[in-house]
């Protein structure tokens, strides 16, 4: 680069696909980068996805390339288990105070798995959206990076139990480890803090949390995943019955003044994709999609056309008014309008998927970030040297977010940061 050598690295906060991409694109262009993630592992939300639309390929494939780039590029330093306490200073000279989770499992872990076999405690698996359990010491996925087990301190009995530490041959477990503080210096800071699914329980009429066989779209991803709670079988939570008749409710909480007033922009494509999961798994299954508008912009239209060609997938333009449970069978009873089919109708399905939208993560940034009325980071209002990328600033699909990640990376070179 013609740009003078930067004295301090760029810090990227958030190790999901956007943060990973900013970090790698900047590092491959010559910057030193520190990638900070609060969870024990990188990968964020897309790691939970069974497949990407529209190619129906696994996100792990691109992740593998990215992890290899991280492993082999000495310009990137990854810090996991680190929550941002504060960001101070100015462009070119930021100080990021991190709260480091207790390092109960250290880098000597070989992921041999003996600890998990010995562990007597269990925890609800948040990675599988609460649909399964893991031991208190666990690896959330066989491709997790860094390849190192973690302990859920909320469940682990610590030194009172210590069965894991006893069987570990590598001294990788230290149950006396304490939380620690750490400071990272950076010339610029990129927020890639991502999103969380909108809490569907807040949408009263759609039955989430009350009707057992109503799930959200992230739960559907985990269910379809071969590494998920059901090993890829799409079954009802209530009784494990194979789902042969499914319905999707679009804009569950999105485009709704009482919830998220914006469009989350990925849910139409996600439901189309998820309908193919079921159709591929059970050839005698059928799916119904209740929608306001089908939003498949640009080349995604071809994916919509391909899915719509399947006569076992129906599209009904209309809003869902009510969702109830048939106590005898566990079936979901859906009352919805059908604008082109003559008004209000009732439907009985095995399972209902709420296409819940994306809400920006907005806690624990350590910096008073300007946000717009929707809660997304208003990047045009950020001070020099501070940037935002991905869904932290705009609800978008993966490929759009990654275009933005590359665009954000070049801005870190252009900023006063590090010069």
């Amino acid at each position, binding site marked *: *680069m*013609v*740009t003078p050598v930067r004295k301090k690295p760029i810090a990227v906060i958030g190790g999901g696909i956007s943060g990973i991409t900013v970090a*790698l694109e900047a590092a*491959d*262009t010559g910057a030193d980068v520190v990638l900070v993630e609060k969870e024990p592992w990188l990968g964020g939300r897309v790691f939970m996805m069974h497949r990407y639309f529209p*190619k129906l*390929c*696994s*996100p*792990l*494939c691109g*992740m*593998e*390339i990215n992890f*290899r*780039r991280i*492993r*082999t*590029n000495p310009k990137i330093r990854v810090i996991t288990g680190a929550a941002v306490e504060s960001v101070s200073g100015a462009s070119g000279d930021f100080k990021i105070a991190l709260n480091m989770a207790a390092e109960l499992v250290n880098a*000597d872990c*070989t*992921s041999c*798995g003996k600890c998990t076999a010995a562990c007597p405690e269990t925890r609800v698996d948040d990675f599988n959206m609460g649909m399964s359990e893991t031991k208190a010491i666990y690896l959330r996925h*066989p*491709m997790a990076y860094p390849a190192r087990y973690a302990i859920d301190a909320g469940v682990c009995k610590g030194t009172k139990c210590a069965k894991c530490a006893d069987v570990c*041959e*590598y*001294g990788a477990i230290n149950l006396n480890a304490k939380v620690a503080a750490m400071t990272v210096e950076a010339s610029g800071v990129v927020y890639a803090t991502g999103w969380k699914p909108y809490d569907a329980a807040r949408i009263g009429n759609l039955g989430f949390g009350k009707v057992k066989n109503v799930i959200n779209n992230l739960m559907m991803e985990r269910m379809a995943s*071969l*590494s998920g709670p059901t090993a*890829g079988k799409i079954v009802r939570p209530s009784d494990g019955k194979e789902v042969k008749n499914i319905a999707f409710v679009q804009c569950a909480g999105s*485009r709704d003044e009482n919830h998220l*007033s*914006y*469009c989350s922009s990925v849910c139409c494509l996600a439901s189309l994709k998820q309908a193919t999961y079921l159709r591929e798994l059970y050839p005698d299954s059928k799916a119904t999609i209740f929608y306001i*508008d089908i*939003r*498949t*912009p*640009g*080349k995604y*239209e*071809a994916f919509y056309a391909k899915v719509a060609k399947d006569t076992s997938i129906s599209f009904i333009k209309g809003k869902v008014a009510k969702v109830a449970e048939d106590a005898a069978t566990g079936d979901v009873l859906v009352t919805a309008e059908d604008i082109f089919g003559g008004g209000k109708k009732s439907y009985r399905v095995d399972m209902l998927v709420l296409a819940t939208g994306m809400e920006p993560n907005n806690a624990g940034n350590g910096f008073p970030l300007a946000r*717009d009325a929707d809660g997304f980071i*208003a990047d*045009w209002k950020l001070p020099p040297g501070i940037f935002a990328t991905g869904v932290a600033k*705009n*609800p*978008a699909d*993966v490929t*759009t977010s*990654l*275009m*933005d*990640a*590359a*665009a954000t990376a*070049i801005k870190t*070179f252009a900023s006063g940061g590090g010069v």
Partner: protein
Amino acid sequence: MTQGAIRPYICTGCGIGEAVDVARLAKVPVASGLPEPRHHPFFCGEQGLKIIADDVAAGAGSLLIAACSMRTLAERFNFGHGVKVERVNLREGCAWVSEPKDEDTQLLAEDLLRMGIVKAQKTETPTPFIEKLEKTVLVVGGGIAGISASLAAARAGSNVVLVEKDAQLGGFLRKLHKRFPRNAPYEEPEETGINENIEEVKNEKRIRVITSAQVENISGQPGLFDVTVSAAGGVEKFRVGAVVQSTGFKPYSPEKLGHLGYGRSPNVVTNAQFEEMSVSGIIRRPSDGKEALSVAFLQCAGSRDKDHLPYCSSFCCMTSLKQAAYVRNANPQAKAYIFYKDMRTPGRYEHFYKKMQDDDGVFLTKADIAAVEPMDDGSVSVTACRTLLGVDIKVKVDLVVLAAGMETAAKNGGALKLDYRQGPELPELNYGFPDSHFICFPYETRRTGIYAAGAVRQPMDSAMARTDAEGAALKAIQCVELSSVGKSVQPRSGDTSYPRIKFESCTQCKRCTEECPYGMYDEDEKGTPLPNPLRCRRCGTCMGACPQRIISFDDFHVDMVSSMIRAISIPPEEEERPRVLVFACENDSLPAFDMAGLTRVRLSPHIRLISLRCLGSLSMVWLNDAFSKGIDGVLLFGCQYGEDYQCHNMKGSELAKERMGKLGETLGRMMIEPERVQFEQLAINDYTRLGEIIGDFMEKIDAMGPNPFKEFAE
């Protein structure tokens, strides 16, 4: 770069010591003339690493570490520049998938070690291809994408040459009255800001603008692209490092929209024409200059239509909403009607849609357009059916605006005029848009160092085009930066090897020049390949394609794999220990095997796995080697190919499959059943299926019986 004698290590941790007889295993390297291997139960720990580091300090330059997968703890087993590390996967590839202390497990471990030794012996740390490179970025097309790419690159420190065919910069945006809102609160059309952007370009000393100009030729490779540009002042030649193609789009030709009234009434116009009509403040219909007090917007005019453009043009819904705002702002008495298929205002654009929905003077409905008929008084009648009101609607309006979509400018070609054997333009993916892998790596171009950005590569609005162009500018700079130190870009970022060719044995068969997914090779008039190493992405497809075996990488070549195959011990037939060779793509299939190990999937101990950079690097010679050696079957694991290909080298697995198609004849000559070779499309998350796939294949091999060559094999 050679590193001298190989120093072997055997890790006995993570269950390896319990699964195999390490003392027996240790005889393998000794039998190959290597020193006695060092053992440790925890080589990746501090003590273990110190043992290795001490050897390195004492001069060991080539390490053979038999422990876990090369994907595991790669950072810890990196002993610095110039120290070659070869990993043998005794853990995920043997101990974790096989029966402990079983003789077959032992034989597997011994073979893996033999194969690793041969690989280490046959390879060298690559010597990179390094040239003095030019780093200037050429941007072709000076619309908003080209302007954004130029500004981003210049501000990051690069010199830029921006070539624009028109006399002025600004492209399509310069023709707009206003643009739709880009930022909160997303309520009113905004100034385009294009003149300010043009000024910024003019004031940026690192950007040189050439207008009324055209690229006549681009030859060479990243860092060494020689460009010829013709402009009013004549022809000039200069060198650049990388290229951004931002040549934009063409509005869909309205002449094809006669069914929507275009050409049948002067009062049916396109959205592009309507912009110019809106500038003055009063919107007048073209036929008689009467103020247009009712305007109907017909969405998807030519888009989402199998007879026209099958895709959605992405910007037209927001554009019509914006233009409806023009109508309403010009005269509060005026009415706007928008007939749409689906209203597509993704993300926060929804707020603007809501704002327009709340305006009583804007009538919106989903509808199919049944008829557009000019009336005698100059007005136009629009009949819409399947509307949200449940009845057909007929409105008489002063003006009809067709929300015409976009076609990529790349469709016409001629923007880059690349001097490439595989053609003068970026390869097309579909609908005329240039190729990209599309999801996880949006800039995965097939012409290294040349990046399409903006509406030329997919339908998008100007806000997205800015972002896309800035991203492309980053990739352009990155390509030259990595190339300047001999490193590859995506997907094998950082790889310093490159193909070396023994030209004296070349038969000018042209397979390498035809099959390289990146167009790395040009050709002389006889068909001899002319390599451009800086275009190379190190997939090895040319190596797999070459029947003469004259293409090789320092650390990956045909003889290396052939030697690994020959290193496999073949037990005599009566032992009933079949041997199946597995070739696996390094990016997807190899991690799947590792995950099978991590989740303790039981795999047949009779398989011998060789990972390849890409299945496209598969040489047919290896199948010959395998069967003449007495191997009973060969399993190939590659990525999905076809329309939704998942191969990050686009064509690798497909080419391997094609080569397999020609295999039958060869096998027939050898009296080998073609069923002994099986091709599997495996995704990385399919690791749970591996046990079954391999189990089924082993059964098939058992049923066929041993390879008839086994008894003749050495």
